């Protein structure tokens, strides 16, 4: 199968066209147009990307297998964990969200659940202490803010 490169090539050509069309939407720079305006360099790039993507479509490399099935789900789980980590960092606070995120990742990568979440908790507390005391940098405490000293 050689469809990965082809599909990607087509997507990139679409991107190149959209990106190139975007250059027509720029406002005129203050002081009038010059030899090289804000649109010149992007237009060059659009042409280069379109041509090189065309090459990928014409002469694609053999595919690497995508991890469908279970591994694919694991990957999606990992990405979801990362997104939730980012989303919950401020509301839950650094220590709790880190325990959950690092713990879940360790667990999904094959560690036993207890060990995984203990690793998460220890690393979270250690990094929090390091940042607040050694580096003097405040990470959000979130739910644990009642413990805040001073």
């Amino acid at each position, binding site marked *: 199968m050689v469809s990965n490169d082809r599909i*990607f090539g087509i997507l990139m050509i679409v991107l190149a066209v959209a990106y190139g069309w975007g250059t027509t939407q*720029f406002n005129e720079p203050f*002081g009038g147009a010059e030899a090289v305006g*804000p649109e010149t360099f992007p237009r060059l790039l659009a042409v280069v990307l379109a041509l090189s993507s065309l090459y990928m479509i014409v002469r694609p490399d053999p595919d690497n297998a995508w991890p469908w099935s279970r591994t694919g789900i694991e990957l999606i789980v990992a990405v979801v964990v990362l997104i939730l980590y*980012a989303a919950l960092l401020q509301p839950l606070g650094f220590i709790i969200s880190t325990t959950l995120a690092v713990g879940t990742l360790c667990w999904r990568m094959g560690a036993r659940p207890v060990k995984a979440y203990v690793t998460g908790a220890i690393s979270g507390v250690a990094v929090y202490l390091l*940042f607040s005391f050694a580096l003097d940098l405040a990470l959000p405490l979130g739910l644990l803010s009642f413990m805040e000293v001073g």
Partner: protein
Amino acid sequence: METLGFLMDGFGVALAPHNLMFALIGAFLGTLIGALPGLGPANGVAILIPLAFTLGLAPETAMIMLTSVYAGAMYGGRISSILLNIPGDEPAMMTCLDGYPMAQQGKASEALAISAVASFIGSLIATIGLILLAPLLADFALTFGPAEYFALFLLAFATLGGITGKNPMKTVVAAAIGLMIATVGIDNTGVQRYTFGTLELYEGVDFIIAIVGLFAISELLFFIEDKAGGGKEKMAVNKLTLKWADIRNILPSSLRGGVLGFIAGVLPGAGASLGSFIGYTLEKKVVGKKGYFGQGDPRGVAGPEAGNNGASSGALVPMLTLGVPGSGTTAVLLALLISLNITPGPLMFTQNADIVWGVIAALLIGNFLLLILNIPLVGIFVKLLSVPPMYLLPVVTMIAFVGIYSISNTTFDLYFMVAFGVAGYIFRKLEIPLVPIILGLLLGPEMEKNLRHAMDIADGDWTILWDSGLAIGLWVFAGMGLILPYIVGPILRRRMRVATGTGGPEGD
């Protein structure tokens, strides 16, 4: 002897106690980063950049620390090659060939010690080469006009894949994507480009976020896919019984490897992998039938190790003098320079002489530190090597999160980083190299600026871009950088594969 004076000043900077301390920390962390499989040098340096900011380090201290990390990572790569038969980074691949057999014969600690000495010699030679060559090249680079710079940037992209690169067209695709991302934001005439009215995009995409996402997050995803969480069986380390004669025995190999490596590192398109490969093949040729290469010959450890370390110091030459990195890790170091508001290139040698020479002196000092760290303390690194990736990678990911979060304290950056991570995973699956994307992000603004200057000077005449002999030369080399991989690439790659007996980790 002007250079000597600068170098002395550099030592003054590098020997300041806090700089020395950060050099030591950097060397230690670097060795660790290099040793742990799945945490390559570019990745490791990238994760540490935000931390250098949050520490509020002075520019020269930050640069010294991360250069030490860089140097340390090259030392560390050999540890997992020898003990696990997995190269910690790509250039350490050749070290596996004789290093692992030595470990199998119960001579692991000799192999580690020999490779440390060889790394030391290689780096030392290359650092001296750097001291001699860099000022000359910087002077020469002062004659470059904008057109020459524009061509030079093209050359940098074209040779980035190296002549062993698989598909140069994918390098072009990657470079174009990187440059496109770099155009997002307000350009220097004040026009908004591709911001879609989003406030966060006005200042463009922060390349530190992109780098950490592309490297660190995609690495995590790859480990999950490979189910490599458990780690591999490692060799036992015996007590060290190294005689002086053993070291004398490998000296010539290390010297040859170091010189070759340096040359390979300076030249665009060669890089550390080729440096260690040439180092190994040359050793095999020179020693001839007297050697027992592939079965644990110490010279087969020394040659490529010296070559690999020589190349990594050599790669700093174009980065420091021209502002054009030739490898992933030097690209990340360039990212640090740019974010410290230092314009890399020939002017840096005059305007930021203390930083440049401080870094160079720190390289020399770092080498001695690393030798000391790596012979008696190798046991610590070996212990840390047995931390399975299933614990290590989530923690590293967390450190990446903290680092990025601490830059601006916004969640937006974190989402961005995860998005770059997913993109990086897809790119790597399609074998689209990540380094040109990063280089595009870094060099994009400079490239456009030089194009503008050149065209303004020539009043919109495109031929200015190839008007001088120098510019034409650069264009020709850039063209060769794209065409040669199609011609000699398959041959060289086949040889490397035959030599290592594996497909090896290609690209990255």
